[in-house]
């Protein structure tokens, strides 16, 4: 009887030990989300940080300051709601603080609701927002036309690849390196990612071998970014517009990309330069080699 009791006791002790170790090893994902990030608008002059009324086609600046909570900020999102909600920007990062400025062009919608969101690794988020109303006295601006610009591909030794569109001047690599801030558009032939005839800008993702050397893009300190969006406009639509209304209506920041790729004659792209000027170009002709050329006609907002 005593022996049987002893055995039961030993068995219970061992079972308890098993359960104790189970409790130590039983581990699940930590569901405690902790302290999340914070976000606020910059209140400096020149920045919009509350509801406002702005002329159509005009640019305005927004400044954001965000701080991490327990863990770094990993996602920054800008959404705009007018007729529908679209994502203006959605980018990944891993930072403790965020200090970012955005320049936005007022579109045609009567009211845009802008929401700025930061998220962290734990899924915590914070947001701020404001409304921008279209000024009822808005009028569309004038445009300038550049009938022909010829740009050479990277190995063209007689025609440069880099365009100072404000002054309508074309430069080769070494010349462009000396005036980086003036260069907003460039042209190259992309055989590496097979994008062929490509109009882009210094801040686009261009392989270092395209423009190598001391003056190569990887060594630039100022890299302007122009964004492009292909349109379905007809040639006659392109020829006939006379103010910037179609530019404002057609350009979409969320859909625009840093490259206009695989260009062929007849392609029409709307673009926004680094200096926030909207424009449109039509490809007149293109020679598809790394020493070839592209000829475009441009209609854009004046500087």
């Amino acid at each position, binding site marked *: 009887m005593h022996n049987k009791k002893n055995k039961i006791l030993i068995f219970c002790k061992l079972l308890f030990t098993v359960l104790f170790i189970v409790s130590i090893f039983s581990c699940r994902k930590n569901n405690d989300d902790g302290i999340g990030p914070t976000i606020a608008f910059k209140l400096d002059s020149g920045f919009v940080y509350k509801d406002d009324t702005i002329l159509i086609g005009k640019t305005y600046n927004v400044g954001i300051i965000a701080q991490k909570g327990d863990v770094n900020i990993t996602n920054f999102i800008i959404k705009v709601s007018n007729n529908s909600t679209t994502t203006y920007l*959605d980018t*990944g990062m891993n930072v403790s603080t965020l200090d970012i400025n955005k320049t936005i062009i007022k579109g045609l919608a009567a009211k845009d609701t802008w929401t700025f969101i930061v998220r962290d690794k734990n*899924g915590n988020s914070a947001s701020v927002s404001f409304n921008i109303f279209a000024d009822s006295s808005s009028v569309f601006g004038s445009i300038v036309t550049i009938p022909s610009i010829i740009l050479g591909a990277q190995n063209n030794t007689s025609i440069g690849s880099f365009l100072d569109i404000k002054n309508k001047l074309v430069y080769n690599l070494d010349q462009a390196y000396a005036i980086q801030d003036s260069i907003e558009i460039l042209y190259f032939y992309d055989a590496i990612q097979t994008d062929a005839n490509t109009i882009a800008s210094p801040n686009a*993702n261009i392989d270092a071998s395209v423009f190598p050397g001391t003056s190569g893009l990887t060594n630039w300190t100022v890299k302007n970014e122009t964004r492009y969006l292909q349109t379905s406009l007809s040639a006659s639509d392109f020829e006939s517009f006379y103010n910037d209304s179609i530019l404002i209506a057609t350009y979409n920041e969320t859909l625009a990309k840093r490259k206009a790729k695989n260009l062929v004659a007849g392609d029409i792209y709307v673009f926004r330069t680094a200096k926030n000027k909207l424009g449109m170009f039509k490809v007149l002709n293109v020679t598809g080699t790394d020493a070839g050329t592209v000829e475009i006609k441009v209609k854009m907002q004046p500087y």
Partner: protein
Amino acid sequence: MKIKIIKYFFLFFLIVSVFEAYSQVSINGKITDASSNEELEGATISIKELNISAISNNSGNYEFSSIPAGSYNLKVKLMGYKDTSLYITTSAGAYNFNFKLISGMYEMNSVIVTATRTEKKIKDLPASVGIITRDEIQEIPAVTADEYLSLISGINITRHFGIFYKTGDVTMRGLNRNVYTLLLIDGIPASIVDGGATNWNRINPENIRKIEVIKGPNSSLYGSNAMGGVINVITRHPSKPFKAEVNTFYGTYNTYGGSLNLSGSKIKNDKGFYWLADGFIRRSDGYVLYPDSIAESTDVATYLKENNGSLRTGYSFNKNNNLEIEYDASDATMGQGKKIFEELGNYYHDIYQFWQARYNGLIGKFRIYASAFYKYDFDDAQKESIKQSGAYTFLNTYTDSGDKGIWCNASFPFKKNQTITFGFDSKLGKTKSSDVYHTSTDTVTYKGNLDYYGLFAQDDIEIIKNRLKSIIGLRYDIVNFFDADFTIDAPSFTTSFMLPYLQPLTEKNWNALSPKAGLLYKYNDSLSVYFNVSRGFRSGTLSDMCKTGDVNKGFKLANPYLKPEYLSNAEIGMVIQYHKLEVEPVLFYSIGKDFQYFVGTGDSIYTTKTKKQPVIKRENISKVEIYGIEFAANYTLNKHLSAFLNYSYNHSQIKDFDTTLFVSKDLTNKFLIDVPLHHIFSGIIYKSKFINFSIIYKYASSTWADDENTIKVDDYALFDAKVSKKFFKSFNASLTCENIFNTIHLDSKGLLPPGRFFIASLGYSF
């Protein structure tokens, strides 16, 4: 007168009795291991002439008392050791005969359970089987448990990153994926849900009693995944009232750790409790996977942090019945060699728990084995990357998987020379995996259930006594796929391109019939020939059936309609023992049907703003033909020196690749990836009281890294060595060196192996 006769009768009786008493013999002695001098329990000492036997106790002692004087053949047998015998002549008195047993690399009288799910001697099996003993595990230079499997010919171990790889690739018989090999631990499937890679790092080699291997399809007993073969790792069993073993080690890349094994047995007269507790930890700083010439600033050393523990207790009701409960747990984190912002970089973190209750017993004439188990696995894989466009992505993949089931079988002697085994297995598994993006709002989740049910029966007949044996078996399996789903919450540009490809994942079930038949002819104790045919199958993985997403080859769609793969095999083998040489050649031929490959759908899609990928899907599209030779030879020169050689040739090719319904390159006549044509594992082992030494040679011929056979991975040869010494009876020191000549062979992605790797260890037992 009458009284006088009675008196004389009693006097005569007394004289005879005294005379008989003085003619009685007692024999005793001790059984020990010839190299370690360890006392051996459980050895059978038999005297055939008297039809009696004794078993050595936990001190290695045996005894025969009150046996008549005479001449006898004293035979000693113990599993894992070579039989030995001694012819003795006795007259009245006490005799002492001690035996030192030599461990056998390949012991035909060894008993194996895995081959038939009953105890059977290797020499009675019409199949290619092998046992890796505890002695071999201690003698061979290896760091992880799977590396010992190379001692069996036909098993290919790929551990390109050494211990810094969360799974070892263990493949057999010319097949090239982990899912084709069923790994058991103490008879229960080790991997969760749908088979596949197991974290071999979790198995402490110090806790292994033996490893049993049976090659070729064995779905007739084990169901899904037993296509290339079955490996059963059997852990140690307490035999002494108390035993403790402590081991610490230190090695290359600041690798260090230790293990503690405690056990106790209160079994008396076959009745009582026993218990075992085992713990094992390992840490390492790791190394950088990329060669200096291409390493970037974000390439950092892999690292390792492992904790493993095991508890077991049981009660033995009598010699034939016992009940056990077991709990295992493991917590391991492995760096993946990349770090961008996060402190821990890219890592893989795995938490595993296992509960089991098992009964092993004899009820009437039925030998019964039953086990109920539950496994739980939680994985957290963290990954940071920067795309070519400069975009930063950071996500964690959380995967919850679990299995529960009952495996049971019973065997009974149907007739004098016939044993019937039958059983039922169930394994109910489910998994749920979520990719949680931190750099966008997306959460991509897939989940599904796979339930397996199997009924099997086996007939083991000795057709001609000691000459001709046959085993036939059949198993019927039902696999049920259900409750599957694939969802994307809060999709952004990161995953929104997948939305048009989401589809309902309907419930499906399959069944499979897996037969096996084998015939063994024993010419004599030194020569036997066997032949067998068998069939195996493997159901699709939950990932292939439920998950849509990026893979190396393109953008993969889930395919809930995947059918199982099948493999039919025929093999003929021989076992030859000639003096000190044992040789086993095997020829095999297999045809695989409905093998799965990625095929194009004709679509392509931008998975990022700049990356266009083909849309692909896994389909049952091909036949595979595999044939080969396995050759194993073991030579024991004396109790100190032995040598072995394993060689395998595997010709594994795709046949009948059906491109009529799919957009795909025709892979007909292409070789299976990762299967070397030639594989060698050989070595020499020296054991003595003073020092033990072993040196191993490994060779694998070149392999193809892609299905189209355009990228080749070079062949390589490696040398490993181990030296160990026991001193002061309880201490054991060893030094293991893997890849002595620091041979650098890059894998298909140009990543480095760990190179020359040292581990020095010191152990103490009492």
